[in-house]
């Protein structure tokens, strides 16, 4: 019986664990190192471990993913094998000075690095030839192992051939900072840009407030959150989207007695802990609700008897609110107040008007507005999820306008902001960082020749320069050979090479059905990855790359208070995996470029540069007056041991200790010198402390935003925040809006973030699949109407594609709304064209609007019970993707 078990285990080996590793080596009578080298050559480097020496050594291990957390993470390594991980325990834990704990995803990091599905060797698609071969088999072909020489030769020769035949404009490289250096030096490539996480915050916030989408400068410091009396979380679900400490931090606000309101289509896991009240709202209709709230304040405000509006703030710090405060040259009729009142368009934006759209009781819209207006200290926080909506260019402007109306900007205990869970804290980049890493010292190779000038694509006028494709148009561009470069500016384009040097473009950008079509059209597709991800699945040549655990180290940007994490090497590169930068240099060599320009500074030196340049606020005076000083103490011995060039310096923490701990954190307490109130100086004196907008003030009338949108050529908006229904929003679910007769796709779908994945990373990890089945959420009223029961397999169809999933029927989501979590790796059943994995971008289409926003949270679908022929197994039972059948 036990022998059978041993064999069964051996055949089903899914992870190289220590036990299995030792059993195998014992069984094979082999050495301590597996073929391909798991031997650990770092023993000479480290000082004696603090922990149990016989058990191995704890090493700061990277968690480098794009959830925004990038938390400290530690791996226990013995004889080259990771026994287990742990989260931060480098100091005592308290709400003021919390340990930087990570989530289930980072905890599964070793399963990703050492998984049996790691790509070991370069691979070529069996039916590929120069020119494409049988292109229709991309995504469903067999794989053949090839050598690195052959792989690099093929890639280089294809780049060369396609450049010579079609020009650099035929090369599309949506991701991969390393290979983009090579391609830039080789004449350039077509790049892409998209709103991704920030949604319409990009153009809207930059134009109306002067800050970029990922700049959380609008959020007060977390200590100040404890002064907030009413906390409004609009569309945010930190428990899923920002694993780690963020929700713990918001709990401290609640513990001080704050009243907390969540406005969301779903009674999320975050809401179930923090919410005193849940206001269900339809996706993509937030703008309408806030207009209804603005109407209430405008019509009921009486500065003497019933003050609801902060006229002082509006008059001093904003432009465009009413006809008396318009900028020069603007039509006075284009003021926000008259729009809300319906003076010129005949449609007063009453709470009733709003309710018809957003689904919230008009009485609550009214009372909420008044509650926010009357409460002294209010935090108004919108998640960028609400901005990931088609046609929602004016929505961030609307939200900040309401914050301005109620005066909850620039005061202790009050702020209006966005992206506030980002980077494992709260308002991470609010104010200057307490700690920041230095620069790596790697010089730029210059501008990509095909990009034209170096501009901010979100605000540049008259149009985006060069040949750049917006995410929502790129796949169409490849397939149709045409793209809109600006208003009335339709151009030809002929992409024949797609280079995925990094990122997960095919998986995470809208319009995957079209994207797959695009991948089957071009002559050559090449991809770097560690596992057979979507990018690689549809490629011709796949190059296996190392993870951060297999490199000397990495500096990952983290939250404001720790600045960065220094993670060190855990293991030698697995099998034949190589660094991305090595690949970029090797290809460069074959293209006649100088590899030392592509890869000029060894990684070790880059790390050292960032460590040496790391700075920390002195903290002896309040932050706005405080200066930076070096963080790390470096001795000559350190420099010699690391084998780098540099100068000794004096700092707060010795280099070796920082390397061991992984990060440095300043103990904090309420009232310390690191507290920050967003825009306080601006509020006090907007002339002396203008915002980086054209007018220096908050632009409720923003000509730039309207111009930018118009110039992109897809749609037009008003300079003031008018409501623009999304093409695939609530209104689109109706064939007849007036009589409320539903159309072909009667349900609204959006893409909640999901704790199994960081975007699409970790989707393949079985223990995460076991914990998170990737369900499709639906309300019982909608389910019962379709004869669907909890746990059934259902089919979800949009205009753009079809997926199947097990359904989670729950009252936690409002009727009329469903959600398919973001990030599952597509797995199309070629016979039926149905995606078994439930990839969000199969349902979301390539629809270009406004500034070029990827509007994932505006999507309409129909759902029905799935009757076959596919037999859908639970995700955790799916076999791992192991493309080459050999050890």
């Amino acid at each position, binding site marked *: 019986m036990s022998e059978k078990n041993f064999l069964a285990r051996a055949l089903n080996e899914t992870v190289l664990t*220590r036990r299995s590793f030792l059993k195998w080596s014992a069984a094979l009578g082999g050495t301590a190192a597996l073929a391909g080298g798991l031997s650990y050559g770092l023993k000479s480097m480290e000082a004696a471990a603090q922990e149990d020496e016989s058990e191995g050594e704890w090493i700061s291990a990277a968690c480098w993913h794009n959830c925004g957390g990038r938390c400290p993470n530690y791996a226990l390594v013995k004889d080259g094998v990771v026994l*287990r991980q742990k989260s931060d325990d480098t100091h005592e834990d308290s709400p003021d000075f919390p340990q930087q704990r990570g*989530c289930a995803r980072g905890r599964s990091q070793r399963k990703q690095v050492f998984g049996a599905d790691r790509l070991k060797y370069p691979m070529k698609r069996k039916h590929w030839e120069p020119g494409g071969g049988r292109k229709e088999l991309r995504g469903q072909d067999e794989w053949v192992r090839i050598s690195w020489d052959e792989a690099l030769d093929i890639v280089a020769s294809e780049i060369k051939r396609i450049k010579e035949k079609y020009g650099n404009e035929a090369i599309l490289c949506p991701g991969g900072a390393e290979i983009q250096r090579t391609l830039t030096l080789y004449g350039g490539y077509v790049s892409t840009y998209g709103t991704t996480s920030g949604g319409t915050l990009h153009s809207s916030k930059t134009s109306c407030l002067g800050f970029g989408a990922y700049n959380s400068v609008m959020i007060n410091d977390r200590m100040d959150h404890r002064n907030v009396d009413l906390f409004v979380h609009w569309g945010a679900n930190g428990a899923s989207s920002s694993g780690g400490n963020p929700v713990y931090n918001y709990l401290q606000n609640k513990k001080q007695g704050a009243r907390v309101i969540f406005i969301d289509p779903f009674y999320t896991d975050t809401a179930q802990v923090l919410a005193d009240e849940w206001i269900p709202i339809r996706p993509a209709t937030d703008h309408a609700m806030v207009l209804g709230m603005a109407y209430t304040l405008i019509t009921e405000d009486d500065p003497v008897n019933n003050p609801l509006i902060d006229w002082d703030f509006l008059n001093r710090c904003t432009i465009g609110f009413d006809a008396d405060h318009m900028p020069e040259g603007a039509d006075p009729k284009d003021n926000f107040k008259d729009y809300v009142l319906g003076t010129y368009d005949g449609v007063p934006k009453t709470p009733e008007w709003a309710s018809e759209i957003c689904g919230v009781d008009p009485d609550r819209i009214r009372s909420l507005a008044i509650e926010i207006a009357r409460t002294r200290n209010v935090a108004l926080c919108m998640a960028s999820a609400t901005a990931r909506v088609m046609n929602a260019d004016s929505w961030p402007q609307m939200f900040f306008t309401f914050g301005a109306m109620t005066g909850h900007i620039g005061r202790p205990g009050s702020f209006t902001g966005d992206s506030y869970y980002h980077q494992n804290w709260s308002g991470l980049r609010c104010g200057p960082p307490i700690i920041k890493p230095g620069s790596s010292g790697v010089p730029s190779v210059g501008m990509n020749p095909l990009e034209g000038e170096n501009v901010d694509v979100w605000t540049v006028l008259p149009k985006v320069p060069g040949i750049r494709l917006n995410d929502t148009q790129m796949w169409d561009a490849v397939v149709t050979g045409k793209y809109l470069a600006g208003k009335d500016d339709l151009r030809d384009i002929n992409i024949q090479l797609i280079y995925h040097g990094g990122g997960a473009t095919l998986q995470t950008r809208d319009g995957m059905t079209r994207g797959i079509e695009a991948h089957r059209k071009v002559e050559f597709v090449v991809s770097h990855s560690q596992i057979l991800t979507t990018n690689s699945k549809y490629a011709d040549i796949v190059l296996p790359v190392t993870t951060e655990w297999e490199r000397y180290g990495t500096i990952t940007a983290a939250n404001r208070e720790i600045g960065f994490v220094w993670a060190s090497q855990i293991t030698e590169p697995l099998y034949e995996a190589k660094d991305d930068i090595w690949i970029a240099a090797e290809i460069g060599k074959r293209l006649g470029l100088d590899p030392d320009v592509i890869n000029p500074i060894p990684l070790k030196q880059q790390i050292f540069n960032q460590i040496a340049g790391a700075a920390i606020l002195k903290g002896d005076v309040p932050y706005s007056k405080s200066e930076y000083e070096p963080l790390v103490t470096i001795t000559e011995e350190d420099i010699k041991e690391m084998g780098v060039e540099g100068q000794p310096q004096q700092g707060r923490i010795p280099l070796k200790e920082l390397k061991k701990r992984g990060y440095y954190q300043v103990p904090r307490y309420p009232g310390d010198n690191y507290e920050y109130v967003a825009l306080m100086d601006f509020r006090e004196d907007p002339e002396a402390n203008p915002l980086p907008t054209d007018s220096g003030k908050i632009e409720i009338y923003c000509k730039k935003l309207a111009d930018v949108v118009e110039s992109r050529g897809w749609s037009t908006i008003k300079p003031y925040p008018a409501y623009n229904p999304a093409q695939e929003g609530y209104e689109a679910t109706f064939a007849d809006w007036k009589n409320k007769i539903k159309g072909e796709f009667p349900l609204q779908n959006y893409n909640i973030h999901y704790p199994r994945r960081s975007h699409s990373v970790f989707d393949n990890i079985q*223990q995460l699949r076991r914990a998170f089945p990737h*369900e499709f959420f639906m309300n*019982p009223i909608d389910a019962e109407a379709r004869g669907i029961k909890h*746990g059934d397999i259902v089919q979800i169809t949009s205009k753009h594609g079809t997926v199947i999933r097990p359904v989670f029927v*729950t*009252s936690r989501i409002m009727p009329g709304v469903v959600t398919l979590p973001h990030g599952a790796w597509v797995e199309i059943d070629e016979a039926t064209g149905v995606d078994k994995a439930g990839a969000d971008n199969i349902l979301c289409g390539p629809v270009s609007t406004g500034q070029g926003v990827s509007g994932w949270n505006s999507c309409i679908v129909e759902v029905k019970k799935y009757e076959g022929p596919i037999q859908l197994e639970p995700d955790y039972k799916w076999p791992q993707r192991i493309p080459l059948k050999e050890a």
Partner: protein
Amino acid sequence: MAKQLGFYFDSSICVNCKVCQVACQDKNDLPPHLRWRRVLQYGGGDWLPHPSRPGLFIPNQVFSYAVSISCNHCEKPACVEVCPTGAMTKRSDGIVFVDQNNCIGCRYCEWACPYSAPQYNDIEGVMSKCNFCMDLIDKGEKPACVSACVMRALDFGDIEELRARYGNLAAIEPLPDASITSPALVITPHRHAQASGSGTGRVLNLPEEL
């Protein structure tokens, strides 16, 4: 040495993130289908048409909360009582653990435990269970789940101290009545928590996840 070690769980702040479940799987090298600690969602409520506004629905007592549960190292452990080989034992500090070298894999303990703490490891043919990270405890460290929880909802210690600090509640829906095995567990209930056995909701997790 403590007389009876136990867990504390604060259901009012658990966000269902399952890092406790995954940290345990990581620390103990468990295959994906064995989960010595699991997180269950319990919830209920429904939606009613708005009484006066057609087209609007309002939530009616919609609630949900999460419960993280491993082994409760019970004071009256049913698993120890029924184990024929004595592989399932209770230490003097209250920790109940299974000595896999003596286990015959008869799964009787699995039948007897109302928390499904003993789980059959089909790869090895023996039972497996949360052992309170006794190797860490013996070194003066904390169980992996307690250290990992991002909301700080888990704690551990002598059960009498935990009871003195947090109260005597040892069961809420969907957990079974505490009188069956007297779990060494203290719970701070979620504000919507329902009493064990008289709940109006249901376990929300998909059947395939359970």
